[in-house]
């Protein structure tokens, strides 16, 4: 499509029915109450000139360019700040208004460089447009008068520049940072002529609190705040609508192109998840897609000690299929399997699980969601009947109390965090359950009502105590429970036992009982209480128990089935939800239906033309165990760096080294490809054609801006391997894959590329009964019929601190980086996070003689690594914290084999460690682990 310019109505849309009638220059229009005259005029098709107004921000009324005349009102009110009244007669074009506007523009232009022809914003500048609109022909002020033409430039941000000489002091940037992003990094300092924009307290953008979300750049009507890529490449000339490929928020973007080159990514105003907002990753960090490190041709080798050989696609695919069959012939059908990626599209994931089930003939397919949100799938399915969050993101705007558990949305899910912050600034109260004092506990205009810094691994004790308070203090929504749920009596008896009281929980969690009671009462008595949670819930040995505990609490207090409530996982990767939906788990076919269900299997057997195994397959950790034991020999890994991202690195490396065939499909060589025999180059999101499903079950289109740089789409590669193994797939376009998903999977029955292209996005279930999708689930009844209470025993993790390992390590993530960093480390985002740091409490540091910035060793019973220390009291003494974005840190060198009892999701969040000042020169992660040494010798590939 040509360059898409969204209409800017000047002020935000107001909710409600269009009940107020007004007339603008003789045209009648109806708008909701509270709408501005400016917006009504725009909707009537007679836009009013404006500079300081834009419809993502509340009106400000500073430029006065939008003056109008209104019958019965004196003077010339600003249309942006004047709300409509019934029967209003408005005139937007009169000689008096024209003269006033011309005078205003003349003043602006007199203090503005007249370099329009060479300005980077030429053609995309509202000041330029308005000068034309008001018919400005001359400027009577002399350029030698006082002006800002020599104002300094700030080029500290890696992605955008600030050129003060072009600033018209409209404060759109300041308001965007306040209202849209909620960071409050900018201020408008001084008065009158001296007014200027400042980041932080007179700092550069990079030094300030700015998180580089780009909202100010987008709001700026001039070239003052401008993407550097626009300066370098010029104005884009076409738009491709697509979806961010980083996190589970799933923001919609306009990829603005010049030829085949992406000039910039601009968040789409009607994106269902983001409504015009973005974060630094999606907005700016797309350069990895064209990074020279990309592998573009297939590579093959016989042994992992050999050099790679660049080969044709035919040779790589023949080799892969032949070796898979040879290994199955020698070691049985179950000796091979695959791991799907949450970074790939639904269509790409679907074909991988189909390859495993139809061509490999087993159910050995798992997904990287195993190591993040598999407990969500299990826990919500057991209690509510479906493996997905209950709400859309918009719902948070109706929440009165937000219970945030084990999640750090301002870093992990920034665009959702902005929505949450807006609601918190308005009125909602916040309860944070997290060992670490995350930014949301206290940030500008936000203060959590309760922060309960519970010890890592004690979530279940805490949620049980919350439920205990609800049950024993009469705060249960008895009507809801009686009508909608089952198993309540047994659960209530269990949860009311004294061992679940806040007093007992206080001993376990380290949080005073009174604080627990107060927070629990606040949650239970809020009108609308909503739970949001992240990997701090799931990545524990009791992750599934905790998910069910939260579901119990929400049901008991009636907080399910309407706006403003619910139990909501904040998903890590962009398509975690989708990869799970698509049948990536070894016990489930697409749509979360068990492989032992004959009726479901027969649907797929008919479509795929083969019989399917009714037995669950191996999960990722089981694959590794089986590889070490010798019964699992070949693995296809789609777009995941398991050698770096999975826990207990030494164990994983030994398992990979023990395999006869490892096939990696990825953008880059990575840690896993060191163990691979075949490297099949993958496509970036800029080349993909398909769909992603975000954390609110929203299916979004991802559209290619260029052909695959590798020459093959990922779904084609998988189809070709399957074909060579005797199971042709026969797709000619990904839309046919989605058609097959819809035909076989009831919750997707109504989904098609055509529908998505027409409506933008849709939230599953999308069926005949809900053709427009389902933003809020379990409205009238639970998916499983009645919501089921499940007693949740608190079982402490087996990972205990000892004298040798007296500290608890917990892990997290940071805004500017993404997972193991394969993408973000190849962008300008390294400006913010050049290395992983170990946060350690000053007390723990002092007793070890550690000072800020020291190189320290971090050791657990399975391995040792080294990194630099940062002293911080964000965690309680006894707890240390790090991120895992950089491979040299190898944080997973120290994480252990403990995992969730129900799903084997690894316990990343609790590891007993020791920290010591390093005296020897720092090196890469040290060689660790007893288990690695006991691994069997590496069999030669092909032997």
């Amino acid at each position: 499509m040509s360059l898409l310019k969204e209409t800017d109505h000047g002020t935000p849309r107001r909710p409600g029915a269009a009940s107020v009638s007004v007339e603008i220059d003789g045209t009648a229009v109806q708008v909701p109450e509270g709408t501005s005259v400016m917006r009504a005029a725009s909707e009537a098709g007679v836009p009013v000139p404006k500079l300081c107004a834009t419809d993502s921000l509340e009106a400000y009324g500073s430029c006065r360019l939008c003056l109008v005349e209104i019958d019965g009102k004196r003077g010339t009110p600003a249309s942006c700040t004047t709300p409509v009244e019934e029967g209003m007669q408005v005139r937007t074009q009169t000689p008096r208004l024209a003269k006033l506007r011309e005078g205003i523009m003349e003043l602006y232009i007199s203090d503005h460089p007249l370099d329009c022809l060479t300005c980077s914003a030429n053609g995309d500048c509202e000041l330029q447009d308005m000068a034309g609109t008001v018919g400005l022909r001359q400027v009577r002020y002399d350029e030698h008068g006082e002006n800002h033409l020599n104002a300094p430039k700030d080029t500290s941000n890696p992605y955008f520049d600030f050129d003060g000489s072009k600033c018209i002091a409209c404060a759109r940037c300041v308001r965007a940072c306040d209202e849209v992003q909620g960071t409050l990094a900018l201020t408008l300092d001084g008065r009158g002529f001296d007014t200027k924009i400042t980041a932080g307290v007179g700092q550069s953008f990079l030094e300030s609190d700015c998180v580089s979300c780009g909202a100010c750049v987008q709001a700026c009507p001039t070239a003052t705040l401008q993407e550097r890529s626009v300066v370098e490449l010029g104005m884009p000339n076409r738009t491709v609508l697509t979806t961010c490929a980083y996190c589970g928020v799933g923001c919609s973007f306009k990829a603005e192109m010049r030829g085949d080159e992406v000039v910039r990514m601009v968040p789409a105003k009607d994106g269902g998840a983001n409504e015009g907002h973005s974060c630094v990753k999606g907005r700016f960090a797309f350069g990895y897609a064209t990074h020279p490190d990309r592998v573009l041709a297939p590579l093959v080798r016989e042994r992992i000690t050999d050099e790679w050989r660049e080969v044709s696609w035919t040779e790589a695919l023949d080799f892969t299929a032949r070796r898979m069959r040879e290994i199955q012939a020698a070691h049985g059908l179950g000796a091979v399997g695959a791991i799907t990626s949450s970074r790939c599209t639904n269509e790409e994931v679907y074909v991988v699980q189909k390859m495993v089930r139809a061509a490999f003939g087993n159910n050995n397919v798992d997904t990287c969601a195993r190591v993040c949100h598999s407990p969500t799938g299990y826990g919500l399915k057991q209690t509510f009947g479906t493996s997905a969050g209950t709400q859309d993101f918009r719902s948070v705007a109706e929440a009165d109390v937000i219970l945030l558990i084990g999640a750090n949305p301002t870093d992990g899910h920034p665009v959702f965090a902005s929505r949450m912050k807006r609601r918190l600034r308005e009125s909602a109260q916040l309860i944070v359950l997290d060992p670490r004092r995350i930014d949301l506990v206290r940030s500008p205009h936000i203060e959590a009502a309760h922060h309960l810094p519970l010890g890592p691994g004690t979530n279940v004790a805490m949620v049980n105590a919350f439920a205990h308070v609800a049950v024993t203090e009469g705060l249960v929504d008895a009507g809801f429970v009686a009508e909608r749920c089952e198993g309540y009596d047994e659960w209530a008896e269990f949860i009311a036992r004294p061992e679940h009281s806040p007093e007992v929980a206080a001993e376990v969690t380290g949080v005073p009982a009174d604080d627990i009671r107060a927070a629990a009462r606040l949650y239970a008595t809020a009108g609308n209480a909503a739970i949001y949670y992240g990997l701090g819930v799931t990545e524990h040995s009791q992750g599934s128990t905790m998910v069910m505990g939260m579901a119990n609490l929400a049901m008991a207090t009636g907080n399910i089935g309407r706006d403003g409530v619910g139990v909501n996982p904040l998903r890590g990767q962009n398509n975690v939800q989708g990869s799970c939906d698509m049948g990536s788990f070894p016990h489930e076919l697409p749509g979360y239906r068990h492989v032992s269900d004959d009726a479901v299997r027969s649907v797929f057997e008919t479509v795929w033309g083969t019989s399917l195994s009714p037995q669950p397959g191996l999960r990722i950790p089981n694959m590794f165990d089986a590889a070490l034991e010798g019964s699992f020999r070949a693995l296809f890994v789609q777009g995941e760096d398991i050698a770096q991202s999975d826990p207990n690195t030494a164990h994983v490396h030994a398992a990979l080294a023990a395999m006869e065939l490892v096939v990696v499909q990825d953008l880059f060589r990575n840690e896993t490809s060191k163990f691979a025999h075949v490297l099949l180059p993958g496509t970036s999101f800029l080349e993909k054609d398909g769909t992603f499903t975000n954390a609110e079950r929203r299916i979004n289109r991802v559209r290619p801006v260029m052909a695959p740089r590798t020459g093959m789409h990922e779904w084609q590669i998988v189809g070709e391997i399957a074909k060579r193994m005797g199971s042709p797939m026969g797709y000619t376009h990904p839309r046919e894959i989605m058609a097959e998903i819809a035909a076989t999977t009831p919750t997707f029955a109504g989904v098609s590329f055509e529908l998505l292209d027409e409506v933008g996005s849709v939230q599953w279930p999308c069926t005949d009964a809900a053709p427009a999708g389902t933003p809020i689930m379990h409205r009238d009844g639970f998916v499983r019929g009645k919501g089921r209470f499940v007693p949740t025993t608190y079982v402490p993790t087996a990972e205990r601190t000892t004298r040798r390992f007296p500290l608890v390590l917990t892990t997290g993530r940071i805004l500017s980086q993404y997972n193991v960093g394969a993408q973000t480390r190849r962008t300008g985002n390294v400006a913010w996070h050049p290395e992983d740091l170990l946060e350690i409490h000053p007390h723990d540091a002092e007793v070890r003689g550690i000072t800020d910035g020291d190189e320290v060793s971090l050791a657990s019973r399975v391995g040792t690594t080294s990194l630099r220390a940062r002293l911080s009291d964000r965690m309680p003494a006894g707890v240390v914290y790090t991120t895992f974005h950089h491979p040299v840190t190898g944080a997973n060198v120290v994480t252990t084999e403990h995992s969730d009892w129900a799903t084997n999701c690894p316990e990343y969040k609790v590891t007993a460690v020791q920290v010591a000042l390093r005296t020897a020169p720092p090196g890469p992660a040290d060689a660790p682990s007893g288990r690695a040494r006991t691994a069997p010798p590496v069999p030669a590939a092909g032997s």
Partner: protein
Amino acid sequence: MSGDLPPTVRLANDIAAQFVHRRDSDAAVQEIAGHVRSFWEPRMITELLAAVDGGAPALDPLALRAARLLR
């Protein structure tokens, strides 16, 4: 230390620990066995049963009763 047990024994013990609070231990055993049947690949069950045959000294009593149902 738990790291020395076969992974299936360790996991079976972890599962059993979730059901110790049940007043009706027969029901708990049924649930544990049902869970294992739904989520474990056959060779994991074989490994667990081999451990049972070998005496499985470290296997939780509830898990042991559940394992017997898996034959």
